[in-house]
């Protein structure tokens, strides 16, 4: 193994490879930070350009974009409350609250440190236990996926706002929207009214851009004044301290674990991991009442949770040639075009390239830390841009991003409707993330549930009789009863206080 690592090092520690990685990171952070442009889109658009490049240049470039874009999503989430991706929505909850209190730099730095630490841990898991972990991941079948989807939806409903009822309303709306389109098992049309545009369902990314970004812009336009009095605050703003990182270390470790396990399962990704991590962190925290009101631990939980997924998603891709999510699917294509054929024979056939890839993953991570640290100083200044210029610019980006996904005018309609719906939801304190996450997860939940019932000849016992599935059910029940207990205790206390 050592000689393979040495070969890997020799392959990629060249100025050209490192330069390509830096360029990719810079491009990735910009793409991730702009609302509407996603990591998947960036890698998909740029990968054909790497077809004719040498693998030692093309692959570092693409990995740089990938990592930069995933990290970049947290910047607008914290600074202007418009998450660039669904995976950064959990980060916005606490991150933006911190920014409003004048602790934007602290939140941004915490997000960077948590991302880099989680990514590093997950990369170690990838390097040392990829094969065994991948084998375990394959044991997950439809019943386990059903329960994981259910678990994620429960978490996001429960932790994204103050009221569980409103969270559930939002989730239900999202599930309703997700029903539109081709039915997943038999291909029947549901609620499409004969419109071809609706056959593919409500596109997630335009909806997400509208709900997260456009609604925030509408709100800002209504207020007329910036939410953050940025100029006065930026001078002596402090960054994340060692104590912040140390205090959140347990959370980061837990979130990394969640991210690695979920990332290694084909089909689940960062969007789920950040919410489960966030929910578990709130449950395990000494100060759960701070969550949603500016908890630094909350930022760490969400960011560690979504970043640990990236290296882990490479596990099923490298070991079996099965992409873990849309972005690894695009990466898989790009790797294949470089002559790197992921699958069971990859490690024996091209071990040196694989280890070169591992070295690159660590290298891009270190570069991200350096790059991010300096970038934050300048990116914070986004809030110094007058709202009259910033928000119209973001609006243009929203339209461009929503159109670019499928080159569809109808997606713009979805985006605008999403914007107004999101505005109403913000006004009525109905949390937006459950709706978006439900649109994302409901089709998977439906498929997994119905697949399970085909396996079991329509018996529900399959969900508890399989060990892993049963364990997830148990965890779900525990978390739910803990939440119910907390609520009851809070009510009892409030009553005592009244008397």
């Amino acid at each position, binding site marked *: 193994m050592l000689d393979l690592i040495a070969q890997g090092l020799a392959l990629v520690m060249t100025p050209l490879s490192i330069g390509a990685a830096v360029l990719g990171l810079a491009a990735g952070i910009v793409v991730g930070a702009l609302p509407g442009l996603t990591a998947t889109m960036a890698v998909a658009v740029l990968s*054909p350009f790497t077809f004719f490049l040498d693998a030692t240049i093309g692959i570092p470039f693409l990995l740089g974009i990938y990592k930069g874009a995933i990290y970049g999503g947290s910047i607008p989430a914290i600074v202007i409350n418009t998450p660039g991706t669904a995976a950064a929505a959990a980060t916005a909850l606490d991150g933006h609250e911190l920014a409003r209190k004048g602790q934007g730099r602290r939140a941004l730095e915490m997000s960077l440190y948590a991302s880099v630490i989680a990514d590093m841990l997950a990369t170690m898991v990838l390097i040392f236990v990829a094969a065994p972990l991948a084998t375990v991941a394959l044991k997950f079948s439809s019943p386990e996926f059903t329960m994981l989807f259910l678990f994620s939806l429960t978490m996001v409903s429960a932790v994204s706002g103050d009221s569980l009822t409103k969270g559930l309303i939002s989730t239900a709306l999202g599930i309703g929207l997700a029903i539109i389109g081709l039915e997943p098992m*038999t291909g029947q049309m549901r609620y499409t009214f004969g419109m071809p545009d609706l056959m*593919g369902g409500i596109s997630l990314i335009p909806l997400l851009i509208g709900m997260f970004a456009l609604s925030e812009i509408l709100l800002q336009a209504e207020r007329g004044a910036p939410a953050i009095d940025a100029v006065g605050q930026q001078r002596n703003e402090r960054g994340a301290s060692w104590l912040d990182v140390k205090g959140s270390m347990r959370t980061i470790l837990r979130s990394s674990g969640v991210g690695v396990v979920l990332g290694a399962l084909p089909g689940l990704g960062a969007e789920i991991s950040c919410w489960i991590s966030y929910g578990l962190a709130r449950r395990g925290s000494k100060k759960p009442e701070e969550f949603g009101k500016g908890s630094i631990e909350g930022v760490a939980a969400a960011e560690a949770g979504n970043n640990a997924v990236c290296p882990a998603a490479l596990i*099923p891709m490298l070991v079996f040639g099965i992409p873990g999510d849309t972005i690894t699917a695009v990466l*898989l294509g790009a790797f294949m075009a470089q002559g790197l054929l992921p699958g069971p024979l990859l490690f024996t056939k091209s071990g040196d390239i694989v280890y070169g890839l591992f070295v690159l993953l660590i290298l891009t991570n270190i570069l991200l830390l350096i790059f991010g640290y300096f970038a934050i100083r300048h990116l914070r200044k986004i809030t110094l841009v007058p709202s009259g210029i910033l928000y119209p610019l973001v609006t243009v980006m929203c339209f461009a991003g929503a159109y670019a996904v499928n080159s569809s005018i109808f997606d713009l309609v979805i985006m605008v409707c999403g914007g107004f719906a999101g505005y109403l939801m913000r006004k009525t304190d109905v949390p937006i993330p459950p709706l978006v996450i439900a649109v994302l997860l409901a089709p998977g939940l439906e498929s997994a549930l119905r697949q399970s019932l*085909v396996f079991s000849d329509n018996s529900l016992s399959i969900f508890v009789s399989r060990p892993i599935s049963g364990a997830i059910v148990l965890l779900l029940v525990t978390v739910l009863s803990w939440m119910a207990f907390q609520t009851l205790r809070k009510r009892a206390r409030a009553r005592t206080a009244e008397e």
Partner: protein
Amino acid sequence: MRIIKGLALGAILGTLGASATLAEEFPEKPIRFVTPYPPGGSHSLHAGIITTVAEAYFGQPMISVIRAGGGGVVAAAELAQGDADGYSVLFGDPTINSLRPQVEDLPYDIDAFVPVARINYSPAVFVAAADAPFDDLDGMIAYAKENPDKLIYSSDNKNGFTYVAFEMLKLKTGTQMKGIEFGGGGPAIAQVLGGNTMAYAGAPSVVGDHIEAGTLKAICATDLERWEKLPDVPTCQEAGVDIVWHFWRGVLARAGTPEDRVQMMSDAFGKLVEDEGFLRLINTINSRVGYLDAEAFGELLAREQKDLKELYDAIGG
């Protein structure tokens, strides 16, 4: 006089120009090459390679457009309603061009497209999980006959490539097996690798390494001759069941596109598939070339559509 001369010259030039328009001026703007599936799959990968090298053979850039949705139906429906000028072509396959418009109620008809060129094809290779209680086609059939509906296999989508392969197998062997649609090739193969299902059928480029590594057992391939990279895997015909089922990747234009334009594109694709850079890239992604011109591709389509109609009439799907 000068004016008349000028007019005459203009007329001559105009005529020349007009005849040139008919024969040579297509394409005079970029062609949209529409992939109906999401980025990252084998379709978009092929599309990326084709569009990268196309300009030299078309005289205009070819723009790769990803228009995913509805399992490919959204893009096909949109193109079927667009202009029949050859400036938008569909990167199609047998499910969206031969099967589904016949058996589902879709917003486009089976004859909404005309064939331009087939780029390549791959057969389906039936495989079994490493711990499945059978090793070959005879064993598989015997197991399925003894245990009706107990042989659970991974399927992709209703009326998808794997779905059809198994419907053919079940009809030809008179067996009952239970398929679970996992919504795509990736999750479907993951389930058979994990031993959650017993069998699957997929492209050689996907299952090949697993057969070599011993993580899946090869049953047979739905082609007329053995696949060059899998010489030990028998064809289904050799193994005793007459199944031929090709997943082709081909270019189609909207019906009504002028014939000379279709022919021009057909010829251009014929030269493109011999391009050195194209061949190198197509090899790197473990694919290959199986070019057919517009006419031969049309014959294949007609035959395939008839066969699939008969299959679905027989199974009542």
